[in-house]
């Protein structure tokens, strides 16, 4: 997996290169927007991580230019500008995800993985399956081991998102954004309560728990090794 990091701050860039490298990515770095545009359009990257405020050409112009040239490499914008307006601008310019600096590295990794999966997922899925857990998007029913499980609508949405990202870490912020469309920090452990409710329903009467907590990062739906 080859990634392009477009970041002018040397320290942040080397932190990203080191962290992403340890997670198994090959990372190239561009120091300004023009170089970033050149490298991104020469292709070969699975995803782009880019800063907004860059010398020569700012991140959003670079992204717009890239999208105008019909290059659809998924892009994650990293920025210190964090208001809702800033996010909307970033996503309109062609960004696929938006993460506000400073960020937890686990958050960045989880979001990058989700981005990379989104590129390969077939959009016309009507059913999701993880081990013996099945979710039917058309009838909106859930079964585990053939036994139907009753879920509230919000629990269904939560499970759907977890199943679409099965095997990968999903952070609390990602759940907040994608399941509830809330773009601000939670003050209390509301998300944890939602997840534990869901866990009660899908894991309680079964031997092998599927919904795992990843300490310091978030949750992951998968079979334990």
């Amino acid at each position, binding site marked *: 997996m080859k990634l392009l990091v477009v970041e002018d701050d040397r320290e942040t860039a080397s932190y990203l290169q080191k962290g992403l490298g340890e997670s198994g990515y090959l990372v190239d770095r561009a120091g300004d927007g023009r170089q970033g545009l050149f490298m991104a359009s020469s292709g070969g990257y699975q995803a782009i991580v880019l800063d907004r405020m860059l010398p020569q050409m700012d991140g959003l112009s670079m992204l717009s230019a890239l999208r105008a040239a019909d290059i659809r490499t998924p892009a994650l914008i990293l920025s210190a500008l964090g208001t809702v307006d800033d996010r909307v601008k970033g996503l309109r310019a062609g960004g696929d995800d938006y993460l506000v600096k400073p960020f937890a590295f686990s958050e960045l990794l989880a979001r990058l993985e989700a981005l990379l999966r989104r590129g390969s997922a077939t959009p016309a899925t009507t059913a999701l399956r993880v081990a013996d857990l099945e979710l039917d998007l058309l009838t909106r029913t859930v079964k585990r081991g053939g036994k139907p499980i009753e879920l509230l609508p919000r629990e269904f949405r939560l499970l759907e998102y977890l199943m679409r990202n099965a095997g990968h870490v999903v952070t609390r912020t990602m759940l907040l954004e994608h399941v509830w469309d809330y773009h601000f920090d939670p*003050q209390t*452990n*509301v998300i944890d*309560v939602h997840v534990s*409710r869901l866990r009660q329903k899908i894991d309680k009467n079964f031997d092998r728990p599927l919904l795992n907590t990843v300490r*310091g990062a978030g949750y992951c739906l998968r079979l334990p090794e």
Partner: protein
Amino acid sequence: MVAEKLLSPAAARPWSWPRRLPANLRRLVRAHAVRLAALYFLVFAASVLGVLFFVYWTSADFVERQTEATLDAEISGLSEQYAQRGLSGLVQIVAARSAGDRGDAMLYLITDPNGRPLAGNIAGWPAGVPARTGWLSFSVESKSKGHIETDPARGRLIIISGGYRLLVGRDISDAAAFRDRVKTTLLWSGLAALGVGLLGGAAMSRKLLRRVELVNRTSERVMAGNLSDRVPLDGTSDEFDQLAANLNRMLDQIERLMTAMREVTDDVAHDLKTPLARLRARLELALIGPLDATAQSEAIRAAIDEADRLLATFNALLGIAEAEAGAGRDEAGPLDLGEIAGAAAEFYEPAAEEKGFALSLAAEPEVRIRGDRHLLSQTLHNLLDNALKYAGGGDLSIRVFRADGRAVLEVADRGPGIPEADRHSVFDRFVRLEPSRSTPGNGLGLSLVRAVARRHHGTVALADNQPGLKVRLEFPAFAAPPSA
């Protein structure tokens, strides 16, 4: 070296006002009020001159024109006589008219072709006057009060058949005197009017300048740091007084904002210093502590948590600042408060139940306001968070309804409530009523609530729920345009 020093500044300076011109004179010339007064004076002077000229034309000139008209009438009368009775008849008439002073200052003279007088009241052909038909100006000698004087006269000559000349004229010394008099009068009154205009203009612009100068001096003092200085009012409530009053109100607003900002900065500095000191201490302890991997990673984790809390505080402050900056801005879309409340209730329901609350939602349909969904959701989340943190359990109700054309959102709990004395200060940044500060939180939740309420032209009020706390947010209701 010396020559260079002397020359260079002069060479560098293009021509401007002479340097020795007193500064306040230069300012006076530049001042807009003076230019305005000068322009006004020019217009004034032109109109005064116009009026004077008109008066002159209708009075002095009128007399002259009347003289000419009289002479014309006389000549046409004599011409008729001549046509009927010939030269001798004409001579007779002229002789008759010239006899005796009739007091009308008319002058007659008939001469033969050589200029010898035949009849008339002028002694001889006036010297130096050419004998051609048309209007003539000449002078006659007259006796008055015992001595002879020369008077100006105006007349018309016609040559009748055989080269005989008939001159009919009039002594215009009275008219000339009248004209001179009118001229002098007009000149003096014109000068007086212009003088008054000039003085008045100068006085007016001075008065204007003085008041502008007052405003200027006050702004300079304010800019120099004396924020509580104000422009003096003179109580006339004219435009200048209104300008001064508006400036003063603006200065009040600025001063209030500056004070508020200073307070906020102090609060921020104070409340962020404590967690930063803790963070530093933790890192220092990890550095000097035992080289045990688990202990070290535990210390680092604790430091990261501390940093996260700091960041959360920063984000909350930025959120408040953003909401406050947008105050008064009209948001685009109408929102259903009931929908926002419903989503929040659904989001909080499990956590509330876990903590022993009975969360209920009663929302009237179609309670709409103009607003920002994210900010309003966050506001409601802050209120629910507070209830979960401090109320301990029991009924927790969210109500959305209309009252007196306002959209109302109420969150009420059965907790300890907030004493009346504190109900105002809790909205300030970093204010936490719990002295021990044992519950997590940064004291910014209600500050955001108030900022969001203000941004939406709304109000927030705390009340006693008997027992418990009732937070009531009121917004102007969005009135849907009538559907066609």
